[in-house]
Each structure stands twice: as structure tokens, then as C-alpha cells.
């Protein structure tokens, strides 16, 4: 996946300014930056929920900027949402089945997927009654139900405790081992630095720097963006 010179304007405000970055198959790519840096907006652009004011989105070299979200899903893009978007009236199990149905995959896979993210016991609960952490994992299971090649995770670990976060990190490595590209927007720096192969840093809509976790950690501008 490659984002090429993407700009998003809301009226006079430039939320994302000429950002170019890429994410490779089999790797976890981190996307960090302070609140308002444009991370979620960039996810909206990549999934097709928002048209960019300028720039292109490429999947395997093909320009998909004009395609709608459901078409991109069929090309292998899936995401979770920072502000949760579970189907509150359906059960946890049904949430996953909706995603399986849309890809014509059998419903029996739902139990397997829920077990994989550790939600087996929640299967029959109505989705708007589960705790936030569980709802985030449900969104992950639902995204995995489409068997994505590119998985965009928007702050998946908020609402998880330390132990659950560690398990989540292990799951991420499994997913990349299966050859998927994972993009992780995250505030938990331990998780980002521990899991990511590459990290992009956004600040005020612009790409500040890219590099390995170690390179990014020692970058002056990054400290400034976060602290100053």
C-alpha cells in the first residue's frame, strides 16, 4: 500500500498535508503523532470513507483513489475504528458473521476468529454491552473476517490492560507472519516500539519523519512534537 501526496482540507483547515508513505506486506508499520496529527483522517482516505483533496492511494501499484470503501474492502483493505463502530444491536458473533457474509465465507469461521482474538466467551452478548477493550478486539475479529491483505488498526490497545496488550502484540506478529500488511495507529509507545518494523511520524498533518523505531526515537523533531 502506498499513499502518494495525499492532502485533505476541511474548509480552510489542512488536516493532512501532502503525505507520502507506504506499508509493506509482512510488516507492521507504525503511524504515530499527537492528537490532531491526521492519523485517523489518513485511515479514512486509505479505506475510501473520505475523498482526498489531492493525491492518490495505491494498492499493489494500482490507483484505487476513485474506488468506494466496499470495493477497496474486496481488494483486501480492512480497518478498525478509533471511535468504535461495532453493530450495537447485533450479538458479537453476528458482528463477525456480517463480515464473513460479505465475503461469502462460511459463518462457522466466526467462532474460530473470536477465539483467536480472545472473545470466545462474549460470542452471544449484544455488542453494545461489551467493555471497550473487548469491542476493539471485536472490531479486529470483524476486520479479519474479510481476510484482509492490508489491516489498518486505529488505537487498538486503548481499553486493554498490560497483559492483554502483550497478547495483542503477539497476535500482530502472527498476522504479519501470514503475509498481511498491518498499519498501527497507537499511543502506547511500548507497543509501537516493540512491534513495528517501520514507523511514520505525523505532526499537524505533515509527515515529520520515517524510519525504524530506533531512528524515530532519537529524532529531535519527534520529541518536540510530543513534548513541546
Amino acid at each position, binding site marked *: 500500500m502506498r499513499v502518494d501526496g495525499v492532502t485533505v482540507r476541511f474548509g480552510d483547515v489542512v488536516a493532512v498535508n501532502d503525505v507520502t508513505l507506504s506499508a509493506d506486506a509482512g510488516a507492521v508499520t507504525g503511524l504515530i503523532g499527537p492528537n490532531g496529527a491526521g492519523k485517523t483522517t489518513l485511515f*479514512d482516505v486509505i*479505506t*475510501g*470513507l*473520505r475523498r482526498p483533496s489531492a493525491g492518490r492511494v495505491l494498492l499493489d501499484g494500482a490507483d484505487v483513489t476513485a474506488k*468506494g*470503501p*466496499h470495493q*477497496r*474492502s*474486496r481488494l483486501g*483493505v*480492512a*480497518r478498525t*475504528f478509533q*471511535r*468504535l*463502530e*461495532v*453493530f*450495537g*444491536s*447485533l450479538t458479537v458473533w*453476528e*458482528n463477525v*458473521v*456480517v*463480515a464473513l*457474509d*460479505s*465475503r461469502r465465507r462460511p459463518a462457522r469461521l466466526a467462532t474460530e476468529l473470536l477465539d483467536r482474538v480472545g472473545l470466545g466467551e462474549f460470542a452471544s452478548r*449484544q*455488542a*453494545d454491552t461489551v467493555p471497550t477493550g473487548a*469491542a476493539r478486539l471485536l*472490531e479486529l475479529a*470483524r*476486520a479479519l*473476517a*474479510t481476510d484482509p491483505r492490508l489491516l489498518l488498526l486505529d488505537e487498538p490497545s486503548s481499553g486493554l490492560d498490560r497483559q492483554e496488550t502483550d497478547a495483542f502484540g503477539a497476535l500482530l506478529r502472527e498476522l504479519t507472519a501470514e503475509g498481511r500488511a498491518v498499519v498501527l495507529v497507537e499511543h502506547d509507545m511500548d507497543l509501537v516500539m516493540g512491534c513495528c518494523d517501520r514507523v511514520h511520524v505525523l505532526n499537524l498533518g505533515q509527515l515529520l519523519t520515517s524510519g525504524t523505531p530506533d531512528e524515530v526515537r532519537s529524532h529531535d523533531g519527534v520529541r518536540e512534537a510530543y513534548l513541546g
Partner: protein
Amino acid sequence: MTALLAYTIFGLVTGGAYAVVASGLVLTYSTSKVFNVGHGAIGMVMAFLYWELAENRGLPQWLALLVVVGGCAPAFGLLIERFVMRRLAGAPVGVTLVAGVGVLVGLIGAAQVIWPPQARPVRPFLDAFGVHIGQSFVSGHDLVTLACAVLVATGLYLLLNRTRTGLAMRACVDDPALAGLYGIRPTRLSALSWAIGSALAALGGILLTPVVQLDYVTMTLLVITAYTAALVGRLRSLPWTFAGALGLGLVQSYAVAYLPSSQFWIAFRAAIPALLLFVVLLALPQSPLRIGGVKGSRGVAVPNARLTAVTAAVFLAVVLTLALVVDAPVAGQLALGVVFGTVLLSMVLLTGYGGVVSLGQFTFVGVGAVTVARLGTSSPWALLAGAAVAGAVGALVALPALRVRGLYLALATLGFAQLMDKLVLQSPIAFGVRGSLQVPRLAGVGSAQAQLVLAGIVFALVGAGVLAVRRGRLGRRLIAVRDSPAACATLGVNVRWIRVGVFALSAAIAGLAGGLFAQLRETVAASDFQLFNNLPLLLFAVIAGVTSVTGAALGGLLLMLLPLLQSGFPALAGVLVVLLGVAAAGLARDPNGLVSWIFRAWRPS
């Protein structure tokens, strides 16, 4: 040239009155985030009140105007805000809409009780006065109307831009919670906006009475005109709303002047606001998918296939027994109730599961009825043809209308109902203006009792079908699209086709019911399907329960009983309508309706 000038002045005057009404709508909506469907109805009741004071009780016109616009209307706005709308703050659009429709229907009922139908001439203002501009005469009333429009525009501008209250109101538009943190009390501002909004509805209504006459429905439907103007300003901008209103007034005036005066074009003129509504809707950008926040609701338990089959069998046995014991008039009435129940099943699918509020569902019943009537055969295929035509019309409407969501969509369906009523159902290809059509019953289903059994079978089949949809893949998907269209889209669901499909399916069910309705009645006319019939339908759907088949059955029976009760107890006729409105406004929060109470009593656990 003179004629052009005259019609321009007339258009500006009408547009000025529209602008007064529309600006009230915008002010209320932008401050309280509740779209007042009953805005026109408030104007209607207040115009009647003005008639009562100025014409019936002999108060001077200026005093009556002052009492109504300065006292009664704002007080009434405050009451509605306090007791209906405040409880609905933050509720989904469907809920506030239903509450608004409840207020609307209740007000019409109240007006009919207090002021029974009769001619009520209202003297224009400054009757003795007038000026000549060139060859055209501008009456004193026209001048008063224009002056009022200018005063309202100036007053609102000063209020919003030059006062602290106005600043707070504008802050509330952007973020009520945030405004609250700065010491602004959103509830107080919302109350103020309802008071001013109602006063403007009253003023506009009174100014328009010499033009549109005092009539319960015509004035209530002014909300469509006001809404179209407000939509030009995206329900936010007052200057654009004024521009939209003046434009509408001019278009209508020129239409009177320059369109031919044949039957069709007369109907066309009446449909202009609804037509422009569609034009403006099409010009709006597609609404983006809402992102953020878990939405969920608790429906009543969905029976499994076996329970459905058993219940359907019991239902049919009851219908069959009734058909054997009751006489023809009673059987006819029961059949009507079951047919209404089938119409409500279409709303279970669309509104209960899909979360789409339609104010035009009864219009699809009309489409089905016309199709069956025009085919004029007694073959069962006629019923299916009715369903197919209604479904096709539904899909055709859904394509443009479903670009927008929630409130915009519901009001688009209202505009559609108005268009169909004026342009299609009353046209020679359908019923004709005052015409009616004879409809043969199906071969072998001639008696009222047989009609009851037929309606029962159709209801049982469609009901079981709706439940099968709910249990299956399509139902899950429907609810998923309702809860989070954005998530659905990113999971590969084509949200648009799901919405169009379910809209068409629901229209087809309504059309099927329309065919049954036509055959049951044997004579149908355009007046059976006028726009206004849509509103009680929505109210009964919500009161009885729009999320279950049982709710549809109960709602159908209630809908059938309403006119019986009204004709049986004429003194109570209006009171019943008021009660209906109050019940809907109160129950709007719980879409599971009355039947959920019954279910709870049944299974106390």
C-alpha cells in the same frame, strides 16, 4: 411587462411570508437540533387563533396579532420544548421526527375540535391602503407582509450578531456540550429558539391566510415549502433561507402567470415546492458516512422458524374462524385491519430493521391500488403486478433520495408523497382529479369473509417472510447498515444497494397491500391515498411497535378502528387524534411500542 412586474411583486410578497416561516424553522433546528415537522401546524393553529380573536371576538387586528404572535405562539413553543422536545435531546432523528409528527397530528385534531370546518374569511391588514407601482397595485397587506419579512430578517440578524444571547446561540449550533462548559445553558437557548420559532410560524401563517385560506392541512403542509427554503440554506444559513424563500415565491408566482391553466398544470403548481425540494436535495452533496460511536437498540425477541410457523398457523385459524362466524360488514372491517397490518409490515422492514423513517409509505399503497384498478382483471397476477410496480417506483425514488440520510431522507419521502399525490395519483393515468376507479375482486374471493381470509393469508406469508429476512443474512446486514454504515462499507457491504433494495422491497409490500385494499374497497379514489394519510400510519406503526410483526398486526387493527371510533363518537373525533399525537410523542423513544409491554407481561422473567 406590467404583468411581469405584478407577478414579481406578488411572488416577492408570498416569498417574504415563506421566509418568515422558514427562518423560524432554521432558528429552532440550528439551536435545538430538533427538526420541527409540526412547524406549519403551529402556524396553522395560531392563524385559527388569530381568526378567533380578530374576526370572531372583534378585537382590533393589531391587538389580535400582538396577542397571538407575541404571547400565545411563544408560550406554546415553550410548552412543546419543555414537555416534548427536551426529553428527546440527542435522540436519533427518527425519534424526534415521530414526536414532531405526533405534535402535528395532535394540533390538527385540536384545531378540528375547536374550530369545526366552516368558511372563515380573514380580513387582510390595512385593507383601505395600497400603492400603485406603475400599473400594478400593491395592497396594504402585501406591504405589511414585506415589512414583516424585512423586520424579521433585520431582527434575527441583530439578535444573532449583535447580542450575547445570539453569540451563545451560534456557539450552541456548533457544539452544545462545549458551549455548556462556557457557562451557556443550552436548554434555555433551545427554549428561546422554540419561542421565537413558534412566533415566526404564527406570523407567517397569519400573513399567508388571505393567500392560502384558513385550512387545517394546507397550512400544515407549509412546512414543506419552508423546509425547501431552509434546505437552500442547508438548515443553517438564514440569508440563504431568505433567498430560497423569495425564489420559491417567485417561481410559484411565475408558474401561475405563465404556465397553461389545464388540469395538469394546476396540479403541477401545487407540487412546485415538493418538486423544488427534490431539485435542492439532488444538488446537495452526498452525505458522508457518519463515523464514531456505538449505536445499538434492543428489538423484541425474534421468534425462530418453528415458532413463526406455529404462530402463523394459529393466526390463520383465528382468521378462518372469524370469517365463518362474523357477518359481512364486520368481516370487511377486519380484513381492512389486516390489510393495514400488511402495510405496517413494510415499515417493520424499512423502519424497524433498516432504521429509515419514511413519511411516504401510504403513497406506495396507492401505487399498488392504482395498478390493480387499472389492470381490472380478477386474476391473482394483478396483486403481484401491483407489488412489482410499487417496488419499481420505490427503487426509482430511492436512487436519488437515499443519497441523503436521516432527517433529509424522511423529508424527501414527504416531498415524494406530495408529488405523487398531486402529479400522479390525481392525474388521468391514475384516478383523475375527483375520479374513482372500480376494482374487481379476485375470482372466487368475492365475499367480505373470503377477502378477510385472503388478507389473513397474505399477512401471514409476508409476516413470516419478514421474520425470515430478520433471522437471515439480509436482516443481519440491514441492521448492521443501520448501526454503522461506515463499518459496513469497510467490510465490503455495498451500503447503497442494500438501502435501495430494502426501500424497494418495502415499497413492494406496501404495493401488495394496496392491491388488497383496492379489491376490498371495490372503489378507490385518489383521496384514499393523499399525503396526509401517511402520518397516522407512521404514528400507529410506532405506537403499536415498529420492530415486530405482532406490532404490525396490532397497529393495523388500531388504524382500522380509528375512523370507526371517530364516526361512532363524533364528539371525541378530534380528541382521539390529539391523544394519538400525544401517545406517539410520548412513545417515540421506544420503537418497540405497545407490544413490547405485552411481551413483557407474557414472559415476566
